[in-house]
């Protein structure tokens, strides 16, 4: 446990020092939201798509953060050594996933606020609790899947382009679920709040599946890299 925290803290220290999230990923994600609006070019249309666009931006931001997280490890072959220091490689998995979760959750909060401001999305009443639950479960899922596929492509030549190819299809269900649940929280007329909770529950299941898969698969994956 201590090890997990130490690894997460190391990543967050580096993040804090380089301000990657704050100075770069957050502006990038906001920009993506704006670009969507530009590409769509129609008010009612944007409002309808708000939830989907927020999560799409989250997906792209996840790719960036995962790449960054593993570039740190592979730039000077630190991962090789790191795996020798810990008693079980799954600790590395959870440590890196934890720091990713913290970053993604902060980003998600910012993006939802941006959606309220930019797209005119509205959250009220029971929607708030649902929204927070969705943000939590979905970002946990993103962090776990991101870390898992991050280590798959770590050390590979051209990993920047390989990561999205592998991770995005797997994240598609998460995108759909999070979008639907967020729509419900935004008070859409095509989906009600109770249905939103059903989606949130599915997101939780998704996170658990990938958490266990990641813990189990990390060792053979990390072992294999050079």
């Amino acid at each position: 446990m201590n090890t997990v925290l130490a690894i997460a803290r190391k990543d967050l220290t580096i993040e804090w020092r380089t301000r990657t999230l704050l100075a770069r990923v957050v502006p990038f994600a906001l920009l993506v939201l704006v670009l969507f609006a530009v590409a769509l070019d129609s008010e009612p249309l944007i409002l309808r798509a708000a939830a989907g666009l927020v999560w799409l931006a989250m997906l792209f931001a996840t790719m960036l953060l995962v790449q960054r997280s593993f570039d740190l490890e592979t730039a000077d072959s630190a991962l090789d050594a790191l795996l020798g220091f810990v008693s079980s490689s799954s600790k590395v998995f959870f440590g890196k996933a934890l720091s990713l979760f913290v970053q993604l959750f902060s980003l998600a909060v910012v993006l939802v606020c941006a959606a309220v401001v930019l797209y005119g999305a509205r959250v009220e009443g029971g929607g708030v609790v649902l929204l927070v639950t969705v943000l939590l479960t979905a970002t946990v899922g993103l962090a776990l899947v991101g870390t898992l596929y991050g280590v798959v492509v770590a050390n590979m030549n051209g990993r920047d382009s390989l990561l999205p190819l592998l991770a995005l299809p797997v994240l598609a269900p998460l995108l759909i679920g999070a979008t639907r649940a967020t729509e419900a929280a935004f008070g859409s007329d095509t989906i009600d709040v109770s249905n939103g909770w059903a989606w949130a529950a599915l997101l939780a299941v998704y996170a658990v599946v990938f958490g266990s898969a990641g813990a189990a698969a990390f060792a053979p994956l990390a072992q294999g890299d050079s």
Partner: protein
Amino acid sequence: MASDTAKAGSDAAILLSGVVVALGGFPALAGVDLAVRSGELVALRGANGTGKSTLLRLCAGLTPLTRGSARVLGVDVATQRDTVRSLVGLLGHDNGLYSDLTARENVQFVAHLVGAGTSDVDAALDRLGVDARVAATRAGALSAGQRRRTALASLVVRRAQLWLLDEPHAGLDSAARSELDGILREATRSGATVVYTTHESDALGATVPRTITLTSGVVARDVMEHSR
């Protein structure tokens, strides 16, 4: 040609027989037989591309074995690479530092993971001549030699049972070299086994107890000094 690889046994730190490692179809190691006893200090020599780094990476569990059998500290490298990794300290051609952490934070991180204390960190940094200013500078901004020193400090903190060092002298100045000399001899004295590669004739003082020379992926010579 004093070959002396027959001594196996339970106290063997490294025990290779018929080891072949193919990289991209090329046999970087083409049948290596080798036994290193616990507590030995071994220099690995040979021309460029003869397989020294490959041998070290194999023993550290980083490169898969293609043929033959390899045991490190009694553990099978082919099947239990995870265990091997946790017993071995490897310094490769890369230093394994996080460039956005300071030199001290890098060593501290390792110390935390392996359960060493802050005093160990200070002692290691001090020993390798990493002064306070350098220790507080981000690793990415350090000079080549300072980075190498920091990586060595992490290794000292680590206290592995088997030390594998790939050209540890590269980039170090003469002061750091003689310090490294002392560190390696001390490590073997306290029971650890040390294998390092080098291209320099006078790298570790004049007398290295044992020198193994590779040629084209096989052991060509294995020379012991008579007394330690």
